[in-house]
């Protein structure tokens, strides 16, 4: 207590203040001499905490210049200031990290749009970057650009094997780390993290989607190119051979219903990646995407007694304005409104969908990709 009084009254104490974006200098990147040998280069980047631990492509001035040809924006233009260190994400720095990750030059506009999306207030980047949650930024690419860049929307779309999926997600992670300052074990305070923090990117399977795609649902034209950023806590496989819509929704909702996540505590924004087969089953029974969301919202309500005692207290504090007094028998909806359950269709053959819980109070953001 004495320390609090001393700090309040002494004149020499200083505190940190976020920089004003208007004052951010463009600051072109400096040249650094590095070993030419691939193995030594890898170790050099790792020792300076410039990489994610995987091998890197050297961002030479020539390779960065090739990437910069794919935007009309000036290299020194500040796209965003990224928390927690408020580093200036210039177009050039985004390109440098894209090269390191192995991106093709024409991926750059997607990463510029994703960087802009991450600083929307509702995304709550500060929380995503520094939380103890295993928060990864999942990129969803929509529109013709997804096919042009060959972002995988089919089999293994959340797995390995596609250059765009592997390197776009990795580049965004490096941007978070090298520009935003989210260094693992330092400002990135994740208790365990998750593999999705190496890369997490896919497109939507438009050919197999029986409903409107995500970007159209969010007000963009079908031919628009967009990228959506999601604060994602992991992937949970939903394997069921159900061929009846009600049976399928019941099982999916039951999978979503678990007491150890943030969605029920705050009223979140959980995601479903429905495989084409599951989407067909629902569509064939005449369900729209909105109706699927409504039924899942009803079926996934969870009795508050399933929460740990301390988590129930947190929920009572966080959702009192929305739900009134919350007791053990209160049925908690997973989101404030049914439309906050988000759905895309992706993947190949088979009966496996994916549940992706949301990172606390982060909300996904979709931005147009400027070509």
């Amino acid at each position: 207590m004495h320390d609090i009084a001393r700090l309040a009254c002494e004149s020499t104490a200083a505190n940190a203040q976020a920089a004003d974006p208007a004052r951010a200098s463009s600051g072109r990147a400096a040249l650094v001499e590095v070993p030419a040998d691939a193995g030594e280069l890898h170790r050099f980047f790792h020792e300076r905490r410039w990489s994610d631990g995987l091998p890197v492509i050297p961002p030479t001035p020539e390779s960065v210049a090739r990437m910069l040809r794919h935007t009309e924006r000036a290299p020194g233009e500040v796209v965003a200031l990224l928390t927690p260190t408020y580093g200036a994400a210039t177009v050039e720095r985004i390109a440098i990290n894209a090269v390191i990750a192995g991106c093709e030059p024409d991926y750059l506009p997607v990463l510029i749009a994703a960087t802009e999306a991450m600083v929307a207030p509702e995304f709550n980047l500060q929380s995503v970057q520094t939380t103890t949650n295993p928060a990864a930024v999942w990129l969803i690419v929509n529109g013709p650009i997804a096919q042009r860049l060959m972002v995988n929307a089919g089999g293994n779309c959340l797995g390995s094997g596609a250059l765009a999926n592997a390197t776009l997600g990795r580049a965004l992670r490096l941007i978070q780390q090298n520009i935003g300052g989210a260094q693992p074990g330092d400002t990135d305070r994740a208790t365990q993290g998750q593999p999705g923090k190496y890369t997490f990117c896919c497109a939507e399977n438009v050919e197999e989607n029986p409903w409107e795609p995500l970007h159209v649902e969010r007000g963009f034209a079908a031919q628009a190119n967009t990228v959506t950023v999601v604060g994602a806590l992991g992937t949970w496989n939903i394997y069921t051979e159900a061929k009846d819509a009600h049976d399928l929704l019941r099982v999916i909702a039951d999978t979503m219903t678990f007491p150890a996540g943030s969605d029920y505590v705050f009223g979140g924004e959980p995601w479903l990646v429905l495989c084409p087969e599951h989407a067909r089953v629902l569509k064939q029974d005449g369900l729209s995407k909105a109706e699927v969301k409504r039924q899942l919202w009803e079926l996934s309500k969870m009795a508050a007694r399933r929460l740990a005692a301390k988590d129930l207290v947190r929920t009572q504090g966080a959702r009192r304005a929305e739900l009134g007094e919350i007791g053990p028998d209160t049925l908690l909806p997973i989101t404030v409104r049914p439309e906050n359950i988000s759905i895309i269709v992706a993947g190949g053959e088979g009966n496996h969908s994916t549940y992706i819980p949301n990172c606390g109070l982060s909300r996904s953001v979709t931005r147009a990709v400027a070509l």
Partner: protein
Amino acid sequence: MAGSLQVLDPVAPGRNESQQTRRPLDGLAGKVVGFIDNAKPNFDFLVDDLEQLLLSKYGVTKVIKRRKRGPPMPAPAMIMKELSEQCSLVITGAGD
């Protein structure tokens, strides 16, 4: 460096700048003190104890306590406005 090449630095300098942004107080007597509770369990108990000390030992006239919806979100503008208008000192932190 033998066998070297030149690359561009991928790191952005941090822009958290240390600077004096508040007026130091001449003491706590007669002041209103605010707390932003980040909604972690037990922070409210800690604040209750601090409130008693501030009122009984330091001459603080009033303590205003406000709780966020949850730790990962910023305090809403309404709370920030209320505390900045009414308090000479605002304390935030985490209990657990």
